Protein backbone atom coordinates (compact mmCIF):
# COMPACT_ATOMS: atom_id res chain seq x y z
CA UNK A 1 0.00 0.00 0.00
CA UNK A 2 1.33 3.41 -0.77
CA UNK A 3 0.13 6.95 -0.55
CA UNK A 4 0.32 9.25 -3.49
CA UNK A 5 1.06 12.75 -2.31
CA UNK A 6 0.44 16.04 -4.00
CA UNK A 7 3.66 16.56 -5.94
CA UNK A 8 5.40 19.88 -6.30
CA UNK A 9 4.94 20.72 -9.94
CA UNK A 10 7.87 23.06 -10.04
CA UNK A 11 10.06 24.74 -7.52
CA UNK A 12 7.62 27.55 -7.01
CA UNK A 13 4.57 25.50 -6.12
CA UNK A 14 3.83 24.97 -2.47
CA UNK A 15 0.16 24.09 -2.48
CA UNK A 16 -2.69 23.20 -4.74
CA UNK A 17 -6.47 22.99 -4.78
CA UNK A 18 -8.08 19.79 -5.95
CA UNK A 19 -10.48 20.59 -8.78
CA UNK A 20 -11.58 17.12 -9.71
CA UNK A 21 -10.71 13.48 -9.46
CA UNK A 22 -10.09 11.55 -12.65
CA UNK A 23 -10.07 8.19 -10.88
CA UNK A 24 -12.24 6.45 -8.33
CA UNK A 25 -11.54 3.69 -5.81
CA UNK A 26 -11.00 0.40 -7.56
CA UNK A 27 -9.55 1.93 -10.72
CA UNK A 28 -6.35 0.38 -11.95
CA UNK A 29 -3.80 3.04 -12.76
CA UNK A 30 -0.36 2.92 -14.25
CA UNK A 31 2.53 5.28 -13.95
CA UNK A 32 1.84 8.47 -15.87
CA UNK A 33 -1.94 8.25 -15.75
CA UNK A 34 -3.73 11.45 -14.90
CA UNK A 35 -5.46 10.94 -11.56
CA UNK A 36 -6.62 14.42 -10.70
CA UNK A 37 -6.79 18.01 -11.81
CA UNK A 38 -5.21 20.42 -9.38
CA UNK A 39 -5.32 24.17 -9.50
CA UNK A 40 -2.08 25.96 -8.74
CA UNK A 41 -1.06 29.55 -9.09
CA UNK A 42 0.02 28.71 -12.60
CA UNK A 43 -2.62 26.54 -14.10
CA UNK A 44 -5.14 23.80 -13.65
CA UNK A 45 -2.78 20.89 -13.90
CA UNK A 46 -3.40 17.29 -14.73
CA UNK A 47 -1.57 15.42 -12.02
CA UNK A 48 0.06 12.20 -13.14
CA UNK A 49 0.61 9.37 -10.73
CA UNK A 50 4.13 8.02 -10.19
CA UNK A 51 3.42 4.39 -9.60
CA UNK A 52 1.07 1.74 -10.81
CA UNK A 53 -1.56 -0.06 -8.80
CA UNK A 54 -5.17 -0.01 -7.78
CA UNK A 55 -6.76 3.07 -6.27
CA UNK A 56 -7.74 2.18 -2.75
CA UNK A 57 -9.32 5.38 -1.57
CA UNK A 58 -9.34 9.07 -2.26
CA UNK A 59 -8.16 11.18 0.63
CA UNK A 60 -9.16 14.62 -0.61
CA UNK A 61 -12.40 16.23 -1.69
CA UNK A 62 -12.61 18.52 -4.68
CA UNK A 63 -12.14 22.02 -3.35
CA UNK A 64 -9.55 21.02 -0.75
CA UNK A 65 -6.62 23.40 -0.77
CA UNK A 66 -3.62 21.57 0.61
CA UNK A 67 0.16 21.91 0.83
CA UNK A 68 2.49 19.97 -1.39
CA UNK A 69 3.14 16.59 0.16
CA UNK A 70 -0.39 16.06 1.41
CA UNK A 71 -1.50 12.47 0.73
CA UNK A 72 -4.04 12.52 -2.10
CA UNK A 73 -4.94 8.90 -2.50
CA UNK A 74 -4.01 5.45 -1.28
CA UNK A 75 -2.83 2.98 -3.80
CA UNK A 76 -2.65 -0.78 -3.51
CA UNK A 77 0.57 -1.57 -5.31
CA UNK A 78 0.69 -4.05 -8.14
CA UNK A 79 0.43 -7.58 -6.85
CA UNK A 80 -1.02 -6.45 -3.59
CA UNK A 81 -4.67 -7.25 -3.16
CA UNK A 82 -6.66 -4.09 -2.96
CA UNK A 83 -9.10 -4.17 -0.13
CA UNK A 84 -11.57 -2.29 -2.24
CA UNK A 85 -11.76 -5.19 -4.62
CA UNK A 86 -11.60 -8.02 -2.14
CA UNK A 87 -13.48 -6.63 0.81
CA UNK A 88 -16.40 -8.93 1.54
CA UNK A 89 -19.60 -7.10 0.84
CA UNK A 90 -21.17 -5.89 4.02
CA UNK A 91 -24.43 -7.51 5.02
CA UNK A 92 -24.62 -9.35 1.76
CA UNK A 93 -26.03 -12.45 3.44
CA UNK A 94 -29.13 -12.27 5.60
CA UNK A 95 -28.13 -12.09 9.25
CA UNK A 96 -27.94 -15.56 10.74
CA UNK A 97 -29.15 -16.55 14.14
CA UNK A 98 -26.65 -17.42 16.79
CA UNK A 99 -27.68 -21.02 16.63
CA UNK A 100 -27.01 -21.55 12.97
CA UNK A 101 -23.74 -22.83 11.66
CA UNK A 102 -21.11 -20.18 11.29
CA UNK A 103 -21.03 -18.57 7.90
CA UNK A 104 -18.13 -19.62 5.75
CA UNK A 105 -15.29 -17.36 6.65
CA UNK A 106 -14.07 -15.05 3.99
CA UNK A 107 -10.34 -14.92 4.23
CA UNK A 108 -9.44 -11.47 5.44
CA UNK A 109 -7.57 -9.51 2.86
CA UNK A 110 -3.86 -9.62 3.41
CA UNK A 111 -2.67 -6.25 4.49
CA UNK A 112 0.90 -5.50 3.78
CA UNK A 113 2.57 -3.89 6.73
CA UNK A 114 2.46 -0.15 6.17
CA UNK A 115 5.76 1.07 4.82
CA UNK A 116 7.80 3.11 7.27
CA UNK A 117 6.83 6.74 6.99
CA UNK A 118 9.28 8.70 4.92
CA UNK A 119 11.37 11.02 7.05
CA UNK A 120 9.41 14.24 7.21
CA UNK A 121 11.30 17.43 6.66
CA UNK A 122 11.81 19.31 9.86
CA UNK A 123 9.90 22.52 9.61
CA UNK A 124 8.82 24.19 12.80
CA UNK A 125 5.11 24.91 13.14
CA UNK A 126 5.82 28.59 13.52
CA UNK A 127 7.96 28.56 10.38
CA UNK A 128 5.12 26.92 8.46
CA UNK A 129 2.66 29.50 9.67
CA UNK A 130 4.96 32.39 8.87
CA UNK A 131 5.78 30.98 5.45
CA UNK A 132 2.12 30.78 4.64
CA UNK A 133 1.60 34.37 5.70
CA UNK A 134 4.53 35.58 3.66
CA UNK A 135 3.95 33.34 0.67
CA UNK A 136 7.38 31.80 1.08
CA UNK A 137 7.87 28.39 -0.52
CA UNK A 138 9.15 26.04 2.18
CA UNK A 139 10.32 23.54 -0.40
CA UNK A 140 13.01 25.91 -1.44
CA UNK A 141 14.32 26.72 2.00
CA UNK A 142 17.36 25.21 3.53
CA UNK A 143 16.89 24.75 7.24
CA UNK A 144 19.55 26.26 9.46
CA UNK A 145 18.05 25.18 12.77
CA UNK A 146 19.06 22.12 14.82
CA UNK A 147 18.87 18.94 12.69
CA UNK A 148 18.56 21.16 9.63
CA UNK A 149 15.09 22.22 10.73
CA UNK A 150 13.52 25.13 8.91
CA UNK A 151 12.90 27.86 11.48
CA UNK A 152 11.12 31.20 11.47
CA UNK A 153 14.44 32.85 10.81
CA UNK A 154 14.90 30.88 7.59
CA UNK A 155 11.44 31.88 6.45
CA UNK A 156 11.95 35.54 7.30
CA UNK A 157 15.24 35.58 5.45
CA UNK A 158 13.63 34.08 2.36
CA UNK A 159 10.64 36.39 2.72
CA UNK A 160 12.88 39.43 2.87
CA UNK A 161 14.81 38.27 -0.16
CA UNK A 162 11.72 37.72 -2.27
CA UNK A 163 10.04 40.98 -1.35
CA UNK A 164 13.23 42.77 -2.22
CA UNK A 165 12.98 41.72 -5.87
CA UNK A 166 9.23 41.46 -6.33
CA UNK A 167 8.25 44.14 -8.79
CA UNK A 168 5.28 46.34 -8.04
CA UNK A 169 2.32 44.22 -8.96
CA UNK A 170 -0.29 46.50 -10.39
CA UNK A 171 0.61 49.37 -12.63
CA UNK A 172 -1.32 52.56 -12.06
CA UNK A 173 -4.49 52.55 -14.09
CA UNK A 174 -4.07 48.92 -15.07
CA UNK A 175 -7.09 46.70 -14.74
CA UNK A 176 -7.16 44.90 -11.39
CA UNK A 177 -5.17 41.76 -11.86
CA UNK A 178 -6.61 38.47 -10.89
CA UNK A 179 -5.71 36.72 -7.70
CA UNK A 180 -3.97 34.06 -9.74
CA UNK A 181 -1.79 36.63 -11.47
CA UNK A 182 -0.86 38.12 -8.14
CA UNK A 183 -0.04 34.72 -6.70
CA UNK A 184 1.93 33.90 -9.83
CA UNK A 185 3.84 37.14 -9.49
CA UNK A 186 4.79 36.07 -5.97
CA UNK A 187 5.89 32.63 -7.03
CA UNK A 188 7.90 33.99 -9.93
CA UNK A 189 9.46 36.50 -7.58
CA UNK A 190 10.38 33.76 -5.14
CA UNK A 191 11.83 31.48 -7.82
CA UNK A 192 13.79 34.22 -9.51
CA UNK A 193 15.06 35.58 -6.20
CA UNK A 194 16.24 32.14 -5.30
CA UNK A 195 17.90 31.80 -8.67
CA UNK A 196 19.75 35.06 -8.33
CA UNK A 197 20.70 34.24 -4.77
CA UNK A 198 21.90 30.70 -5.28
CA UNK A 199 23.01 30.35 -8.87
CA UNK A 200 26.27 31.93 -9.94
CA UNK A 201 25.13 32.93 -13.42
CA UNK A 202 27.47 33.60 -16.30
CA UNK A 203 26.27 35.16 -19.50
CA UNK A 204 27.33 34.69 -23.10
CA UNK A 205 25.91 36.04 -26.33
CA UNK A 206 26.57 35.68 -30.01
CA UNK A 207 24.95 36.65 -33.28
CA UNK A 208 23.47 34.04 -35.54
CA UNK A 209 22.91 34.61 -39.25
CA UNK A 210 19.40 33.47 -40.07
CA UNK A 211 19.44 33.78 -43.83
CA UNK A 212 19.44 30.05 -44.50
CA UNK A 213 16.86 29.32 -41.83
CA UNK A 214 14.58 32.12 -43.05
CA UNK A 215 14.82 31.03 -46.68
CA UNK A 216 14.30 27.40 -45.80
CA UNK A 217 11.29 28.25 -43.68
CA UNK A 218 9.75 30.45 -46.40
CA UNK A 219 10.13 27.63 -48.93
CA UNK A 220 8.78 25.03 -46.56
CA UNK A 221 5.79 27.10 -45.50
CA UNK A 222 4.97 28.08 -49.08
CA UNK A 223 4.23 24.43 -49.75
CA UNK A 224 2.26 23.93 -46.59
CA UNK A 225 -1.35 24.64 -45.82
CA UNK A 226 -1.95 27.36 -43.25
CA UNK A 227 -2.55 24.79 -40.55
CA UNK A 228 0.81 23.09 -41.02
CA UNK A 229 3.05 26.11 -41.09
CA UNK A 230 6.12 26.23 -38.95
CA UNK A 231 7.36 29.19 -36.96
CA UNK A 232 11.01 30.16 -36.59
CA UNK A 233 10.56 29.45 -32.88
CA UNK A 234 10.29 25.74 -33.65
CA UNK A 235 13.69 25.83 -35.33
CA UNK A 236 15.17 27.61 -32.33
CA UNK A 237 13.70 25.03 -30.00
CA UNK A 238 14.93 22.06 -32.02
CA UNK A 239 18.43 23.48 -32.45
CA UNK A 240 18.65 24.22 -28.76
CA UNK A 241 17.47 20.73 -27.85
CA UNK A 242 20.02 19.05 -30.13
CA UNK A 243 22.81 21.20 -28.74
CA UNK A 244 21.70 20.47 -25.18
CA UNK A 245 21.89 16.79 -25.95
CA UNK A 246 25.48 17.25 -27.00
CA UNK A 247 26.40 19.48 -24.04
CA UNK A 248 24.79 17.69 -21.10
CA UNK A 249 26.06 20.20 -18.56
CA UNK A 250 23.40 22.57 -19.87
CA UNK A 251 20.65 20.01 -19.47
CA UNK A 252 19.54 18.83 -16.06
CA UNK A 253 19.01 19.84 -12.49
CA UNK A 254 21.31 21.17 -9.82
CA UNK A 255 19.97 20.38 -6.39
CA UNK A 256 21.80 21.07 -3.14
CA UNK A 257 24.93 21.69 -5.09
CA UNK A 258 24.82 18.37 -6.93
CA UNK A 259 24.23 18.35 -10.66
CA UNK A 260 22.21 15.63 -12.24
CA UNK A 261 22.52 15.60 -16.04
CA UNK A 262 19.46 14.35 -17.87
CA UNK A 263 19.60 12.07 -20.85
CA UNK A 264 16.28 13.33 -22.17
CA UNK A 265 15.98 16.92 -23.31
CA UNK A 266 12.74 18.64 -22.39
CA UNK A 267 12.98 22.22 -23.50
CA UNK A 268 10.91 24.50 -21.32
CA UNK A 269 9.42 27.22 -23.47
CA UNK A 270 8.79 30.52 -21.76
CA UNK A 271 5.21 31.45 -22.56
CA UNK A 272 3.91 34.78 -21.40
CA UNK A 273 0.32 35.01 -20.34
CA UNK A 274 -1.82 37.75 -21.70
CA UNK A 275 -2.90 38.87 -18.26
CA UNK A 276 0.68 38.99 -17.06
CA UNK A 277 2.93 36.32 -15.72
CA UNK A 278 4.94 33.61 -17.29
CA UNK A 279 5.02 29.85 -17.46
CA UNK A 280 7.74 27.73 -19.02
CA UNK A 281 6.28 24.25 -19.58
CA UNK A 282 8.26 21.52 -21.25
CA UNK A 283 8.08 20.12 -24.72
CA UNK A 284 8.92 16.58 -23.78
CA UNK A 285 11.79 14.77 -25.54
CA UNK A 286 12.37 17.78 -27.73
CA UNK A 287 15.62 16.57 -29.23
CA UNK A 288 14.14 13.44 -30.76
CA UNK A 289 11.02 15.02 -32.25
CA UNK A 290 10.71 16.08 -35.88
CA UNK A 291 10.04 19.78 -36.48
CA UNK A 292 6.41 19.18 -37.33
CA UNK A 293 5.87 17.49 -33.98
CA UNK A 294 7.63 20.31 -32.22
CA UNK A 295 5.44 22.86 -33.96
CA UNK A 296 2.29 20.95 -33.12
CA UNK A 297 3.50 20.51 -29.56
CA UNK A 298 4.30 24.20 -29.26
CA UNK A 299 0.91 25.26 -30.59
CA UNK A 300 -0.80 22.93 -28.19
CA UNK A 301 1.39 24.00 -25.27
CA UNK A 302 0.74 27.69 -25.82
CA UNK A 303 -2.98 27.07 -26.06
CA UNK A 304 -3.10 24.94 -22.94
CA UNK A 305 -0.82 27.23 -20.96
CA UNK A 306 -3.08 30.16 -21.67
CA UNK A 307 -6.09 28.05 -20.78
CA UNK A 308 -4.34 27.11 -17.51
CA UNK A 309 -4.43 23.45 -18.38
CA UNK A 310 -1.06 21.78 -18.18
CA UNK A 311 0.15 18.36 -17.21
CA UNK A 312 2.21 17.98 -14.07
CA UNK A 313 5.24 16.63 -15.88
CA UNK A 314 5.23 19.58 -18.23
CA UNK A 315 5.83 21.86 -15.28
CA UNK A 316 8.25 19.73 -13.30
CA UNK A 317 10.31 18.26 -16.13
CA UNK A 318 11.85 21.06 -18.21
CA UNK A 319 15.56 20.36 -18.32
CA UNK A 320 16.49 23.79 -19.63
CA UNK A 321 14.50 26.83 -20.70
CA UNK A 322 14.30 28.78 -23.89
CA UNK A 323 12.95 32.29 -24.01
CA UNK A 324 12.12 34.04 -27.20
CA UNK A 325 11.69 37.65 -26.23
CA UNK A 326 12.50 38.78 -29.73
CA UNK A 327 8.77 38.75 -30.37
CA UNK A 328 8.57 41.86 -28.27
CA UNK A 329 11.32 43.48 -30.23
CA UNK A 330 14.24 43.24 -27.84
CA UNK A 331 17.57 42.39 -29.32
CA UNK A 332 19.22 40.53 -26.52
CA UNK A 333 18.01 38.47 -23.56
CA UNK A 334 20.06 38.07 -20.43
CA UNK A 335 18.00 35.52 -18.65
CA UNK A 336 17.49 34.29 -15.12
CA UNK A 337 17.84 30.55 -14.78
CA UNK A 338 14.78 28.76 -13.49
CA UNK A 339 15.95 26.57 -10.61
CA UNK A 340 16.83 23.75 -10.38
CA UNK A 341 17.68 24.03 -14.08
CA UNK A 342 21.17 25.16 -15.01
CA UNK A 343 20.77 27.00 -18.28
CA UNK A 344 18.52 29.43 -20.05
CA UNK A 345 18.82 30.11 -23.75
CA UNK A 346 17.50 33.39 -25.12
CA UNK A 347 16.69 34.50 -28.63
CA UNK A 348 16.26 38.16 -29.48
CA UNK A 349 14.49 39.75 -32.42
CA UNK A 350 15.70 38.68 -35.85
CA UNK A 351 16.63 41.87 -37.68
CA UNK A 352 18.19 42.57 -41.03
CA UNK A 353 21.75 43.61 -40.61
CA UNK A 354 24.91 44.15 -42.55
CA UNK A 355 26.81 40.89 -42.32
CA UNK A 356 30.30 40.09 -43.45
CA UNK A 357 30.73 36.63 -44.84
CA UNK A 358 34.10 35.92 -46.40
CA UNK A 359 34.83 39.03 -48.35
CA UNK A 360 31.28 40.09 -48.95
CA UNK A 361 29.05 42.42 -47.04
CA UNK A 362 25.39 41.52 -47.28
CA UNK A 363 22.10 42.43 -45.67
CA UNK A 364 20.67 39.36 -43.98
CA UNK A 365 18.43 38.51 -41.03
CA UNK A 366 20.44 38.07 -37.86
CA UNK A 367 19.33 37.05 -34.39
CA UNK A 368 21.18 37.44 -31.13
CA UNK A 369 21.51 34.23 -29.18
CA UNK A 370 22.36 34.30 -25.50
CA UNK A 371 23.00 31.92 -22.69
CA UNK A 372 22.68 32.27 -18.94
CA UNK A 373 24.29 29.24 -17.34
CA UNK A 374 25.15 27.96 -13.91
CA UNK A 375 28.83 28.33 -13.10
CA UNK A 376 28.60 25.57 -10.52
CA UNK A 377 28.00 23.15 -13.37
CA UNK A 378 29.75 24.55 -16.43
CA UNK A 379 32.30 27.11 -17.52
CA UNK A 380 32.18 29.80 -20.16
CA UNK A 381 34.22 27.71 -22.54
CA UNK A 382 31.64 24.93 -22.66
CA UNK A 383 28.88 27.53 -22.77
CA UNK A 384 30.51 29.10 -25.79
CA UNK A 385 30.76 25.75 -27.56
CA UNK A 386 27.12 25.11 -26.76
CA UNK A 387 26.04 28.42 -28.33
CA UNK A 388 28.30 27.84 -31.33
CA UNK A 389 26.66 24.50 -31.86
CA UNK A 390 23.17 26.04 -31.83
CA UNK A 391 24.38 28.58 -34.37
CA UNK A 392 25.79 25.86 -36.55
CA UNK A 393 22.58 23.83 -36.42
CA UNK A 394 20.57 26.85 -37.50
CA UNK A 395 22.75 27.06 -40.61
CA UNK A 396 21.51 23.62 -41.63
CA UNK A 397 17.77 23.99 -41.19
CA UNK A 398 17.00 20.99 -43.34
CA UNK A 399 18.72 18.75 -40.81
CA UNK A 400 16.57 19.94 -37.94
Amino acid at each position, binding site marked *: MSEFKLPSLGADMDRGRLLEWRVKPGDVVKKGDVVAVVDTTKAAIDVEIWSSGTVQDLLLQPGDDVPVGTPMLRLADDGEPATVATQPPRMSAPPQTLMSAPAPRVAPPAHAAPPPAAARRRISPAARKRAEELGVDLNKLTGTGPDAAVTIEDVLRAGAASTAVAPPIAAVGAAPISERASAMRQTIAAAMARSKREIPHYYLATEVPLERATDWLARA*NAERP*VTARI*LMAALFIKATALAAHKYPEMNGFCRDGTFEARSDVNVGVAISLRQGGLVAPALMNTDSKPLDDIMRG*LTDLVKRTRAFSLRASELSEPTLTLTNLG*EQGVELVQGVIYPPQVALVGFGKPTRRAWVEGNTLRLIPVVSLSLAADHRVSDGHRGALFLAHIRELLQQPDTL
Partner: protein
Amino acid sequence: MDPAEVRTTIAQVLATIAPEVDLETLDARAPLRDQVDLDSMDFLNLIVGLHERLQIDIPESDYARLVSLDDLVAYLAAKAAR
Protein backbone atom coordinates in the same frame (compact mmCIF):
# COMPACT_ATOMS: atom_id res chain seq x y z
CA MET B 1 -17.84 39.45 -49.01
CA ASP B 2 -19.05 42.42 -46.99
CA PRO B 3 -16.14 44.08 -45.15
CA ALA B 4 -18.41 44.35 -42.10
CA GLU B 5 -18.81 40.56 -42.08
CA VAL B 6 -15.08 40.11 -42.43
CA ARG B 7 -14.56 42.46 -39.54
CA THR B 8 -16.99 40.47 -37.42
CA THR B 9 -15.17 37.27 -38.27
CA ILE B 10 -11.83 38.84 -37.36
CA ALA B 11 -13.30 39.94 -34.03
CA GLN B 12 -14.53 36.41 -33.34
CA VAL B 13 -11.18 34.80 -34.11
CA LEU B 14 -9.27 37.43 -32.20
CA ALA B 15 -11.49 36.84 -29.18
CA THR B 16 -10.23 33.26 -28.99
CA ILE B 17 -6.63 34.47 -28.97
CA ALA B 18 -6.79 37.73 -27.06
CA PRO B 19 -10.09 37.72 -25.21
CA GLU B 20 -9.38 41.03 -23.51
CA VAL B 21 -9.28 42.96 -26.80
CA ASP B 22 -12.17 45.13 -27.91
CA LEU B 23 -11.89 45.71 -31.64
CA GLU B 24 -13.79 48.97 -31.34
CA THR B 25 -11.07 50.51 -29.26
CA LEU B 26 -8.34 49.76 -31.79
CA ASP B 27 -6.94 52.15 -34.32
CA ALA B 28 -7.89 50.32 -37.52
CA ARG B 29 -5.08 51.94 -39.44
CA ALA B 30 -2.26 51.35 -36.97
CA PRO B 31 -0.26 48.11 -36.81
CA LEU B 32 -2.50 45.46 -35.29
CA ARG B 33 0.16 43.27 -33.71
CA ASP B 34 1.57 46.14 -31.68
CA GLN B 35 -1.83 47.17 -30.37
CA VAL B 36 -2.99 43.73 -29.44
CA ASP B 37 0.40 42.29 -28.45
CA LEU B 38 0.24 39.37 -30.83
CA ASP B 39 3.37 37.26 -31.03
CA SER B 40 4.11 35.13 -34.05
CA MET B 41 2.23 32.20 -32.55
CA ASP B 42 -0.81 34.38 -31.92
CA PHE B 43 -0.60 35.79 -35.40
CA LEU B 44 -0.35 32.32 -36.90
CA ASN B 45 -3.38 31.28 -34.87
CA LEU B 46 -5.24 34.31 -36.18
CA ILE B 47 -4.38 33.35 -39.75
CA VAL B 48 -5.35 29.74 -39.13
CA GLY B 49 -8.64 30.81 -37.53
CA LEU B 50 -9.49 33.10 -40.46
CA HIS B 51 -8.56 30.36 -42.88
CA GLU B 52 -10.86 27.92 -41.18
CA ARG B 53 -13.83 30.26 -41.04
CA LEU B 54 -13.50 31.96 -44.38
CA GLN B 55 -11.85 29.17 -46.36
CA ILE B 56 -9.29 31.67 -47.57
CA ASP B 57 -5.69 30.69 -48.11
CA ILE B 58 -3.26 33.27 -46.79
CA PRO B 59 0.28 32.52 -47.98
CA GLU B 60 3.10 33.48 -45.67
CA SER B 61 4.46 35.76 -48.34
CA ASP B 62 1.37 37.94 -47.89
CA TYR B 63 1.91 38.41 -44.14
CA ALA B 64 3.92 41.57 -44.79
CA ARG B 65 0.87 43.23 -46.32
CA LEU B 66 -1.32 42.48 -43.30
CA VAL B 67 -0.24 45.17 -40.88
CA SER B 68 -3.31 47.02 -39.73
CA LEU B 69 -6.86 45.90 -39.11
CA ASP B 70 -7.92 47.79 -42.24
CA ASP B 71 -5.25 45.92 -44.25
CA LEU B 72 -6.57 42.63 -43.02
CA VAL B 73 -10.21 43.49 -43.73
CA ALA B 74 -9.40 44.73 -47.22
CA TYR B 75 -7.21 41.72 -48.01
CA LEU B 76 -9.76 39.17 -46.83
CA ALA B 77 -12.73 40.96 -48.42
CA ALA B 78 -10.91 41.04 -51.74
CA LYS B 79 -9.91 37.36 -51.50
CA ALA B 80 -13.40 36.30 -50.52
CA ALA B 81 -14.87 38.18 -53.46
CA ARG B 82 -12.90 35.98 -55.86
